[in-house]
């Protein structure tokens, strides 16, 4: 009953004209960003964040959340029409979505993606509003040892879900942690790694870093990546988006399964949309009576990953709101936003800022309805956006990145830092060092270090505090197991078990 009362007050917040407008702007921009190459949700939110200093935090967060789950919808359009994923979370949609488009069923593919996303998103919102308060209540029992364990678990899970060399993932994580140590140490007041620069006493602002890594670096990466794909030229007629009865029969359980898989993966720190869509596709193929049809235009092959990625984008808010731990780069950027507005996400957020939390959750219902309508009626507009030359787009990205970095402290030093991080992000991608661990470690680094030190102060220097508290022990156990995963994989491979290797390229 509490949940019903809370969500009704949330709707009172979400259904104000201002918040509906912000939600609509967010989902529209999210779709647009999903369609446009070279810019993703973290970049868009990073670039817009500094501009929302004076905006009401609830409205701003509603808009950013709209961008986050809107991006997945937009990425589907390019996946289906030109076989190029607009976002990493829509890679799996390319497989059957483009095949459907080649058979003249682009409208049906886009329609099932939109409807599946809507239904799975709604399911995810219902689960979120049920479980998030429970998670927050549970998190009230967390002390410094538990928060340290949680941060370690988040870092550890990156080696499970991240691709590539585990050593490079660890190096990237450590780089992020080291960046988070720059500035005055909060306990002792001793400056660390400022190299005589007073501007670094406060540390490196997260906004500056993400403007560089997600803004400028992406410009360089997009210049190098060749634009590919042949656009399926399809004049959409309204009747083409209506599905046949057989389409519904073939995709209904894919939507439910995809939604549940997406919700569960999204809850895990470092889980993410891409992993959820991949797992949903593989699961659907495995349970199908006709797995051989996957890859040839099977509608369930579109419904499952699309449902999963939207469900994951919604459930990804649970660790952010309830624990204060972001589960993805996008929610990490939003955490920076919360800090900018002086709001501390975590278990007390539900108690101290119920309007923000429940207003946000209620706005997701609104946003999902708006996205469904936009996907049915505005697809030609979004398709037209594919024709915008990137040469024009990149100039605007540079503008937003530079102004975003400058506006933090009104300092050109930050702009130069942004350029430096842009070069770093570009180099990391070239050398195949993942960016996500760096970003998450920068966000969680101070929390992890301060929690570790506080825990040892409480226990008077005894490490057993981390093993005597069951929740902290559980988190640290998962972390240790996660770090051992690469060794387990190698051992399994040597023993002849190749199925443990999750690799998109192996499809």
């Amino acid at each position, binding site marked *: 009953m509490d949940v019903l009362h809370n969500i009704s007050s949330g709707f009172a917040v979400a259904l104000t004209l201002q918040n509906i407008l912000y939600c609509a702007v967010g989902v529209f921009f999210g779709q647009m960003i999903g369609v446009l190459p070279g810019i993703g949700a973290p970049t868009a939110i990073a670039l817009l964040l500094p501009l929302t200093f004076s905006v009401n935090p609830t409205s701003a967060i509603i808009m950013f959340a709209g961008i986050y789950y809107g991006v997945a919808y937009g990425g589907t359009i390019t996946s289906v029409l030109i076989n190029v994923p607009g976002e990493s979370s829509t890679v799996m949609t390319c497989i059957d979505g483009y095949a459907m488009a080649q058979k003249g069923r682009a409208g049906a593919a886009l329609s099932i993606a939109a409807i599946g996303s809507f239904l799975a998103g709604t399911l995810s919102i219902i689960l979120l509003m049920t479980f998030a308060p429970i998670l927050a209540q549970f998190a009230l029992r967390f002390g410094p040892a538990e928060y340290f364990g949680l941060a370690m678990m988040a870092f550890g899970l990156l080696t499970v879900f991240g691709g590539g060399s585990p050593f490079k993932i660890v190096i990237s994580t450590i780089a992020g942690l080291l960046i988070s140590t720059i500035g005055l140490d909060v306990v002792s007041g*001793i400056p*660390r790694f400022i190299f005589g620069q007073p501007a670094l006493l406060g540390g490196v602002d997260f906004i500056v870093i993400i403007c560089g890594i997600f803004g400028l670096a992406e410009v*360089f990466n997009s210049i190098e990546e060749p634009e590919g794909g042949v656009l399926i030229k399809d004049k959409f007629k309204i009747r083409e988006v209506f599905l046949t009865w057989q389409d519904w029969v073939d995709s209904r359980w894919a939507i439910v399964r995809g939604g549940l898989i997406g919700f569960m993966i999204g809850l895990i720190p470092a889980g993410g949309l891409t992993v959820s869509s991949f797992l949903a596709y593989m699961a659907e193929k495995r349970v199908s009576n006709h797995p051989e049809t996957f890859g040839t235009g099977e509608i369930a092959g579109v419904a499952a990953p699309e449902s999963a990625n939207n469900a994951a984008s919604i459930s990804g808010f649970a660790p952010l709101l309830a624990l204060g731990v972001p589960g993805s780069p996008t929610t990490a950027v939003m955490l920076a936003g919360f800090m900018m507005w002086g709001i501390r996400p975590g278990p007390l957020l539900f108690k101290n800022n119920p309007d923000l939390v429940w207003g946000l959750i209620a706005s997701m219902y609104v946003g999902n309805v708006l996205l469904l309508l936009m996907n049915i009626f505005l697809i030609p507009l979004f398709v037209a956006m594919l024709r915008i030359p990137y040469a024009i787009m990149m100039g605007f990205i540079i503008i937003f990145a530079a102004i975003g970095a400058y506006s933090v402290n009104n300092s050109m030093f930050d702009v130069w830092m942004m350029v430096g991080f842009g070069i770093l992000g570009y180099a990391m991608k070239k050398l195949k060092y993942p960016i996500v661990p760096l970003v998450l470690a920068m966000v969680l680094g101070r929390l992890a270090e301060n929690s570790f*030190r506080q825990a040892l102060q409480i226990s008077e220097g005894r490490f057993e505090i981390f093993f005597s508290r069951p929740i902290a022990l559980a988190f640290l156990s998962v972390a240790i197991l996660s770090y051992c995963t690469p060794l387990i994989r190698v051992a399994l491979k040597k023993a002849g078990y190749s199925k443990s290797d999750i690799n998109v390229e192996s499809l």
Partner: protein
Amino acid sequence: MWYANIIAGVAIFFLGIGTSVLAWRLPYTMESSPGPGFLPLWLGIIMAICSAFVIAQDLKNKESYKSGKLFVPETVKCIQVLALIVAVFLVLPILGFSLGLGIVTGACMRMMGKHSWLSCGATVIASAISIHYLFGVWLTIPLPGGLIGW
């Protein structure tokens, strides 16, 4: 590509060592808890160890880098854009933010898309005006002015 990875691995190794050396100069412990030097010291050591493993992997798997290239033809465009950004940012105090970033936009169009000088020039002017009014006036961000005052 292989050489680049080896060089990067060596650079990261020395970065890790250097971080540990700098962290050694900070207090390791304070009362009953780690001091400011504790975390960076161990992070530097772990970074150096991991980079050693990366170098070892790269030395063992040289064949896997045959198909990859660090520098592709488009890398030149990246360097050109970076040089443009650095050059404009150096003179931003003279040009002002609005005009400077407008020039970046127009120049990118010319460099990347080979658009006509007329359309690039129009973009410079339109961008400069839009930046001034959107960010400077509406969002009241105090962007530094330059020759034209904004």
